[in-house]
C-alpha cells in the first residue's frame, strides 16, 4: 500500500535502524524512491545518528574508587583481605589451637588442679602408676614436671 509523507516520516527512525518488518520496510523504501523531501529527511536523520554515535567517550577526571571502597568497607560489604570460606575454616582451626596452647602456657594448671587430675587418672585409668609415663607419653610428663619445677612445688 503506497505511503504518504507523514506515514513515511513516522517510520524513518526505525527504518534507519533496520527495525521495521519486511512489509513496512518495503513501503518506506518505495516512498523514498519517489519523494525527494522524505529522502532528504532520511539523509539528515542518518547524519545526526552518525555524529551522535561518534561522540567520544568522556574520560573520568577523578578515580572515585577509594571513596566508593571506603563506604563499602564501612558498610561491611567488602573486606580488605578477602579469603575464601575453606581458608577461613583452616585459619580458624589453626588459630584456635594456637590460642589454646598459649592459654596453657600463660596459665598453667595449679598444683591442686594437678592433684585432682592425678586422682582422676588413678580412679579411671586401667594402667598402673609405674607404666604412667609410657601411657601418658613422655613429653606430657616432662611438661608436668617442668610446670612443677617452674612453680617450685616439685614434691
Amino acid at each position, binding site marked *: 500500500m503506497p505511503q504518504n509523507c507523514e506515514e513515511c516520516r513516522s517510520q524513518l527512525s*526505525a527504518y534507519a535502524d533496520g527495525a521495521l518488518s519486511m512489509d513496512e520496510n518495503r513501503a518506506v523504501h518505495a516512498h523514498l524512491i519517489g519523494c525527494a523531501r522524505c529522502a532528504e529527511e532520511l539523509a539528515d536523520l542518518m547524519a545526526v545518528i552518525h555524529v551522535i554515535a561518534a561522540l567520544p567517550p568522556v574520560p573520568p577526571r577523578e578515580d572515585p574508587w577509594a571513596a566508593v571502597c571506603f563506604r*563499602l568497607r564501612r558498610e561491611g*560489604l567488602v573486606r580488605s583481605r578477602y579469603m575464601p570460606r575453606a581458608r577461613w575454616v583452616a585459619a580458624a582451626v589453626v588459630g584456635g589451637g594456637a590460642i589454646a596452647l598459649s592459654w596453657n602456657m600463660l596459665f598453667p594448671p595449679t598444683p591442686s588442679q594437678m592433684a585432682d587430675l592425678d586422682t582422676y587418672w588413678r580412679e579411671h585409668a586401667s594402667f598402673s602408676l609405674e607404666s604412667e609415663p609410657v601411657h601418658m607419653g613422655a613429653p606430657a610428663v616432662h611438661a608436668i614436671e617442668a610446670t612443677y619445677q617452674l612453680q617450685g612445688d616439685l614434691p
Partner: protein
Amino acid sequence: MADERQLIERYQQGDQTAAEAIFRLYHPAIHSLAYRMLGGSPEVEDCVQEVFLRAFRGLKGFRGEASLKTWIYRIATNTCLNYLDKAKRRGPVDSLDAEVFEEGFATLGDTLASEERSPEDQVMGVELEEAIQVALDKLAPEFRTALVLRDVEGMSYEEVASVTGAALGTVKSRIARARTQAVRWLKDYLK
C-alpha cells in the same frame, strides 16, 4: 558472562578485589553516560559515586535475572534522572527543557536558529560536540535517556526497553521523536 558471574559471587562473599574489578569494568561507561545525561554538570562525579554505591548495595542480593550491564545501566539512568529532577526543582535552568518540549518543533527550530551561527563558524569537532551536548540537554529526560542509550551507548531497542522499564513501542517512539528534534537543532552543523 562466566567471568562476570564469578566476580559477582566473589563480591557477594565480600571480596574487595572483585568489587574493584566490577567498578573498573563499568566506571568509564557509566561516567560517560552520566556526563551525557547531566550535561557535564559538576554533579557528574557525585552521581557516578552514588550509582556504584547503589549498585554494590543491591549486588549483594543480585540473582542474575538481568545481565549485570543492563542492571547497572538501569541504576545509572535512574540515578541520573533523580539528579535531573533535583536540579529541575532547584533552579529555572532545566525547567526550560520542559517548556521547549511543550512548545513544539517549530519553536525549537527557532530557538536554535536564534544562535545565528555563520556557516564559516560551523566547524566540525569540539563545536559540533558541544552542540550535540546542548541538544541532548534540551531534550526532556525520558527522551534524552532513550537517545543516549540507543545512539551514544549503541544499545538495541530491547536493551533500552529493559534498562528504562518502558514498553518497546514507547522506546521506539521516544527515540524517533528525540532524533527528529536533534535533526532540527543540529541540521546547520551538518551542512
